[in-house]
């Protein structure tokens, strides 16, 4: 039995179709849920949590129906919303303890779990200070802590790296990865940043305009023919033409030329072509097959970063 299943899931907001006949089955792991803004990620999460009732279709979490067995589901899921959700005038410890008790943990257990979870997310003595004085990174950690405190089996994270600087982003992703691999908790990470999904997830669900676009292990997307990106200051088109003339699969992409590496000899071909044309070279680097490729045709340029 799949952990999460949806069949013909449809949600309309008036004339807007947020989800349109979505079918999916999710196995345990760290699952990336990607899509452009407005693709229906948050709507899907809210339906799984029972916050929204689908217009039609069904969804189940651990075999429990999201409409009829909402309460049972809520004991086994944790939810970290996309938006700010913390009152500023209490300390992190008090807040997370309170949330643990609302989840049904007895007083002592709530305190112990709070201390443990806050330590896990990396909050130490500052956890007694009022949340209003926290940085965005610390707030995100408190949000994750309150979602984890009742030890859920499934954790739904909506844009967990929202508003974080690059360092904070990496730390949050590392935390997500550890939560998934060390604790055996299934995470569904909704994001519009494909780069993040690539870093931490084992499985990818791509949705667009309420439809399922792709669902496969992440390795399917990243293990493909390696590509060499040759970045030049000018003359990308000539270089691509020269390489194509020599039998390489190459195409110009802005100031870069992307070449499929089919054999080792190709590196020499590229070197010679660059030298012959005397184009100003900036860098040569190997690229993995990127998830972005997925969206190149499906999504208008610029809507996915």
């Amino acid at each position: 039995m799949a952990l999460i299943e949806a069949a013909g899931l449809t949600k309309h907001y008036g004339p807007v179709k947020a989800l349109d006949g979505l079918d999916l089955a999710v196995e345990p792991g760290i699952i990336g849920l990607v899509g452009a803004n407005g693709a229906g990620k948050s709507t899907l999460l809210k339906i799984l949590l029972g916050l929204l009732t689908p217009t039609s279709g069904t969804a189940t979490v651990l075999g429990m129906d999201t409409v009829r067995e909402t309460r049972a589901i809520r004991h086994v899921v944790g939810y970290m919303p996309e938006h700010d959700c913390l009152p500023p005038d209490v300390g992190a410890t008090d807040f997370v303890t309170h949330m643990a008790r609302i989840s049904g943990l007895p007083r002592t257990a709530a305190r112990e779990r709070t201390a443990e979870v806050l330590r896990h997310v990396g909050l130490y003595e500052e956890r007694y200070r009022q949340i209003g004085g926290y940085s965005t990174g610390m707030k995100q950690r408190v949000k994750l802590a309150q979602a984890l405190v009742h030890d859920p089996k499934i954790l739904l994270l909506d844009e967990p790296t929202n508003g974080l600087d690059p360092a904070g982003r990496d730390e949050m992703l590392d935390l997500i990865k550890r939560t998934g691999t060390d604790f055996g908790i299934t995470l569904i990470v909704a994001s519009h940043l494909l780069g993040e999904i690539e870093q931490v997830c084992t499985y990818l669900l791509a949705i667009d305009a309420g439809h399922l676009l792709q669902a496969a292990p992440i390795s399917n997307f990243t293990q493909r023919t390696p590509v060499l990106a040759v970045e030049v200051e000018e003359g990308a088109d000539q270089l691509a033409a020269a390489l194509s003339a020599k039998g390489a699969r190459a195409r110009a992409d802005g100031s870069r030329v992307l070449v499929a590496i089919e054999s080792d000899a190709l590196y020499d071909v590229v070197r010679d072509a660059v030298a012959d044309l005397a184009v100003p070279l900036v860098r040569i680097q190997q690229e993995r097959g990127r998830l972005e490729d997925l969206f190149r045709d499906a999504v208008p340029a610029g809507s996915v970063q």
Partner: protein
Amino acid sequence: MTARSTGAIGAPAGGPAGSPAGSIYDLGYRHYEGRRNGRAYAMWSLFVESLRGVWGFGRPMSAKAAPFILAGLYALPAVVQLAFSSVITQQAAASGRAPELLAYHSYFQNFSFLVFFFCVAQAPELVCRDQRYQVLPLYFTRAMGRIEYATARLAALVVALFVVLLVPAIALLIGDVLMQPDAFKAVRDELPKALPSIPAGALTAIGLGALSLAVSSFSPRRAYSAIGLVAYVLLMEAIPAAIYSIGNNAASNPADKLFLLSPLTSLMGATSWFFGTPLNTQDFAGSLTPADYLLGAIVSAAIATVVLMYRYRRLPA
């Protein structure tokens, strides 16, 4: 702010005193195998947290100021009378006249505005914060329904108001007992006079609590909620009085029924029913009896509760 507090989400990097704490203290993640309580427990937890919140416990000192000052001001006349009870007795003995004392049945009528200010200050505190800072989804994705949430919040405000209303009654009772030479006889005499304070206080607490929470829940901003509540109560007190005064010269004036819409007036009238005292003609015009006001207060409280529940059913999460 220290470098650590802005840094490392990853736990091991930020152990105490910069030590590689992760390797020493990190016990790994343990799953929770213990008891999980149900809805009643969740509601109780929220009730306790709300009750603490109303009085500002667990919050900064500034949050304690408003509730304690207002509750203190409401109790002040009774406490002063208690403090000077011996002086009052001596003077009464010297002058030979019975002292004019604050009465249980008219205390709320005289000082109700202070209880109302308490609602204005603290009801938004209970329902606006969670809307303003979008905490509600965290509750609604847990073992807590919307109706249960609203019920727990309402119960906390009602209990807080009940305490506010009862403290002066207790102070009056103690003062009255101390003023008499025979304490046992005094308790026997005074207690029956004081006891209606309990049901009257309960009804007033429910009526004011439900009304102020229902009005407050319509705005996530504390200030707007407070202004809305003041505006609603002032208008509902003023409009019926104005309409009534227009037709005041007529032999019978059916506009007096409108006084049932005035929240404070109907609660004062209902208080008189519990104490069995007549309505004073200064504050109560028209032909309505205390029983009419009692019924009006109960119906108003029920309507306010329904509105509050309806509001929480409809709130987006």
